[in-house]
């Protein structure tokens, strides 16, 4: 132990020469060494009292329970990263190291991080920050940036090992595999999580290549999700030039990051679904556009050819007619090209709707007629007949072939 002496003679013979004599400084150093080396970093649970914020920014307070108290100090650099505003009476868990302040001969807890215990404290902190940021206008609708319709690079800020990354990646792989998914791994709970998340958002902005960011994590306790309720994260989201989708935990809980983000998703999976379009849907849209192209050009050529055949009748002009035949030829070639492309297409579309081949064929009645089909119309109203029950015996009909047509009378109906 500290100091040695002849115990037997302790009371009778306090002879200074036989004692080890310390200066105050020496003994304090010895105590300091014993305390600081004798305890590993520890967590202390207690209630804050005598809370003082020094003008220097350092925080001084005591932690107490019914029987004892311990002095605590929290240096300015760390006090800025706290998940809540400490105050007298708050029940907290303080993480830190025991140290000795030699000048006052005082031992104290050098607090690295502090967090409240009990839902009440968390709730108070949440409401206070929410109000503060709302008053600043951070949640205003006109601050919200639109989410791009077809992001090709999606940045993700979450834990590298969590379920959230897995959920996001598997949904995007299914719905939009052309997307480049870029993870900036971040701690999402515990000490330093909020700072790491904020740094990740800033880094994506410095990197500049992501079209949208998904920031979040899977569900957990209020405490686990707390980083997303901290000002540091809210501010990083607010200053991000890249649109941010907040995706924290379970469906029901809102976090401060949800309010600050440009879009709130109830879960990481939902965020992935909100951000990318569905592959099958997109393919359908592409083919619709292609069909509009074909339809337009066909109409155009038919109109032009009618105008030209009118000319031909009046003036006997032949050259435009030949050019038009060329156009038709090219159109047929191109349309066939499209059918080949259609063959390459993904199975989903075939399952989802009638094949594009059929649709293209429908757009190209001449091609059908050339294969030996014909079109029958009712003479009295021009109705295109698709079922025999649309006709009666003795009805006049017109039958159109690939080349020319005939008129006739229905003899009998076969259903």
């Amino acid at each position, binding site marked *: 132990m500290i100091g040695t002496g002849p115990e037997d003679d302790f009371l009778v013979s306090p002879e200074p020469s036989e004692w080890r004599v310390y200066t105050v400084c020496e003994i304090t150093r010895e105590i300091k060494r014993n305390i600081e080396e004798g305890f590993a970093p520890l967590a202390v649970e207690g209630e804050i009292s005598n809370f003082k914020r020094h003008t220097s920014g350092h925080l001084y307070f005591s932690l107490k329970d019914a029987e004892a108290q311990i002095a605590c100090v929290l240096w300015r650099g760390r006090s800025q990263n706290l998940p809540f505003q400490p105050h007298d009476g708050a029940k907290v868990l303080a993480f830190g190291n025991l140290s000795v302040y030699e000048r006052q001969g005082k031992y104290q807890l050098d607090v690295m991080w502090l967090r409240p215990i009990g839902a009440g404290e968390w709730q108070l902190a949440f409401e206070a920050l929410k109000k503060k940021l709302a008053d600043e206008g951070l949640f205003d609708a006109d601050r919200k940036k639109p989410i791009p319709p077809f992001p090709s690079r999606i940045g993700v800020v979450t834990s590298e090992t969590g379920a959230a990354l897995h959920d996001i990646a598997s949904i995007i792989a299914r719905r939009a*595999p052309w997307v480049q*998914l870029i993870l900036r791994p971040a701690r999402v709970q515990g000490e330093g999580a909020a700072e790491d998340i904020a740094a990740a958002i800033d880094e994506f902005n410095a990197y500049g290549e992501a079209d949208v960011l998904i920031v979040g994590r899977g569900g957990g306790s209020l405490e686990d999700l707390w980083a997303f309720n901290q000002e540091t994260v809210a501010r990083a989201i607010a200053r991000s030039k890249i649109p941010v989708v907040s995706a924290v935990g379970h469906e029901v809980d809102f976090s401060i990051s949800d309010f600050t983000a440009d879009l709130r998703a109830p879960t990481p999976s939902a965020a992935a679904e909100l951000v990318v379009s569905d592959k099958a849907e997109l393919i359908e849209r592409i*083919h619709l556009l*292609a069909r*509009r192209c074909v339809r337009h*050009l066909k109409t155009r050529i038919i109109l032009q050819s009618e105008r030209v055949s009118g000319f031909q009748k009046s003036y006997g002009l032949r050259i435009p007619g030949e050019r038009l035949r060329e156009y038709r030829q090219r159109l047929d070639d191109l349309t066939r*090209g499209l059918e080949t*492309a259609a063959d390459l297409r993904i199975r989903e579309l075939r399952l989802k709707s009638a094949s594009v081949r059929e649709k293209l064929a429908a757009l190209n009645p001449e091609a059908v007629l050339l294969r030996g089909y014909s079109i029958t119309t009712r003479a009295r109203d021009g109705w295109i007949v698709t079922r025999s029950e649309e006709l009666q015996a003795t009805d006049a009909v017109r039958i159109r072939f690939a080349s020319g047509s005939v008129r006739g009378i229905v003899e009998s109906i076969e259903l």
Partner: protein
Amino acid sequence: MTPSKSKEMTFEQAYQKLEILVEALERGESTLEESLKSFEEGMELAKFCAQKLQDAELRLQKLVKGEDGSFQLELMQ
């Protein structure tokens, strides 16, 4: 539009180009020859887009900040 040219485009660019092209085509302000060119380009774009969707495989990468502040992407499993 040549296929090599369209390969440099992203899906997003090609899709938006196709949309604009079809709308312009349908407004019908161009000559037949121009329409035919647009049509050909539209077919190329549609094929390119469909192909892009079909070929795609999700790439998952990690953003790594170097000591000099520059960024690199590392492929993840």
